[in-house]
């Protein structure tokens, strides 16, 4: 009389909680791999150098940035190009991945209407794409580190931890923003403005010690400043970031990750209805 086999799909059982969404993402890891691959290869498909651009593009950007900013700011910071590039790399990763999480889900609406997929797969694949580019651009960065003779210390072993923290923060923010973007297309523009503002507040091309007190205080509250310090301190200074930077950065990452996934899954039914 009883049901012998449990159903594969049951709306009464599969509550869209954070954990079931993350489980689904893990189940769809092959799709993640292909989405990231598509994002990276499709971009340079028609070009002669092809995939080589993923390496050349950040290198050229770095050279230009290093020249421009070094000439523009009469900075006292020794080895300034490396200082700058650490910040720019984290910034590019963070801003592109979170912004692309937004646009991907908006333009993938037709796909989500036709096939069952865990809906956060697009935000995660945007993160994966950004992370791949980020890791590739660490190759030219290593060249800069050698040229400018920055200290190479065991603190570099902290970098994987830093990257995990930055990624969690980025994914959480990407999910939060993509939920907003589904309901208001304007959010894309609002977010790009917020990003522009954050760029100057993140301590990418200055030390907070060189700022007036009030400004320094504002910068030290900015989460992205901490993300950049987590990555830059081990590479540029050759030291572990101070514990308060690690603690505050980790707090932001955990908070944003949970907030993003919570809000996204809470509204994911409505997202499905919109598309």
């Amino acid at each position, binding site marked *: 009389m009883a049901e012998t086999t449990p159903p594969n799909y049951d709306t*009464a059982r599969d509550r869209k909680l954070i954990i079931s969404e993350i489980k689904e993402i893990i189940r769809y890891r092959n799709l993640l791999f292909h989405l990231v691959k598509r994002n990276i290869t499709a971009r340079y498909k028609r070009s002669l150098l092809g995939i080589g651009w993923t390496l050349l593009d950040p290198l050229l950007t770095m050279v230009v940035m290093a020249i421009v900013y070094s000439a523009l700011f009469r900075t006292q910071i020794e080895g300034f190009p490396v200082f700058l590039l650490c910040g720019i790399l984290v910034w590019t990763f963070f801003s592109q991945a979170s912004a692309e999480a937004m646009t991907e889900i908006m333009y993938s609406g037709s796909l989500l*209407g036709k096939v069952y997929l865990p809906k956060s797969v697009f935000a995660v694949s945007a993160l994966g794409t950004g992370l791949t580019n980020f890791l590739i651009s660490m190759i030219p960065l290593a060249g800069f580190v050698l040229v400018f003779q920055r200290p190479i210390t065991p603190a570099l072993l902290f970098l994987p931890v830093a990257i995990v923290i930055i990624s969690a923060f980025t994914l959480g923010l990407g999910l939060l923003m993509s939920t907003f973007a589904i309901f*208001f297309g304007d959010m894309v523009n609002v977010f790009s403005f917020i990003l522009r503002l954050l760029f100057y507040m993140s301590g990418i091309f200055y030390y907070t010690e060189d700022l007036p007190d009030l400004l320094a205080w504002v910068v030290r509250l900015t989460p992205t400043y901490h993300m950049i310090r987590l990555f830059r301190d081990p590479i540029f200074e050759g030291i572990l970031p101070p514990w308060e930077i690690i603690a505050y950065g980790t707090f932001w990452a955990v908070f944003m990750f949970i907030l993003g996934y919570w809000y996204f899954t809470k509204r994911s039914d409505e997202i499905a209805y919109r598309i």
Partner: protein
Amino acid sequence: MDHFDNTAVDIERVSVRYRFRRDRPASLKEYAIRWVKRSLKVEYLPALNDISLQIKKGEVFAIIGRNGAGKTTLLRVISGIIRPTSGRVRVWGEIVGLLGVGAGFHFELTGRENAFLYSAILGRSQAKTEELFPRIVKFAELADFIDSPLRVYSSGMIARLGFAVAMAEQPDVLLVDEVLRVGDEQFQAKCRARFEEFTASGTTVILATHAMNSVRAMCDRAVWLQDGVIEAIGAADEVSEKYQEALKEGKERQVIRS
């Protein structure tokens, strides 16, 4: 309750209401202004209203009805694309949905890359796709083009590739939304053969369609949806006949009115 052992899909009192605004604010500014003015009215469009039905394992089941009757919504609810606003859906077995063949194709990628991508979208592992790949290419008849970018494909070739990927493996439950008419006559015949192969070996097929002759030819049972509620359910012949009669009457009434 002894039906569960051979039930593939169980739908209990399912309703889907799409929340929509007749004039949805397109921007934050508009939203803010109208929030202040209190003129944000939300309306609910009932796409499905208190639907209950069961589909047995191995059954070929048709969903018929006019445009906007809720056919696609019902398929989406079964496939898990959307969750019902209320009620419960249970499915026993792995589902493959053909609600849009080749969803997610990218024109700059080659046929091979797209096949792997689409297969991953359907939830298959890399190893599984590699195993199925020779069969996919053969079924799609695209051996010469498989490494060319999709933008040089004709629309028929794209559809063939999508169909070949989706049908490469036998699912427990197959959902089809009017996509049987893919490619030329010859390819359609091939698809039909594949289809029959599946149903003969136990796949449950749920088909949303307008083609009444294929309902009568292929399906065991059918449900006729009208404005989100069940108008009739039962043997495919009877339901499709009722539906066609109603359509004819409706047309006559229109003719008289005009």
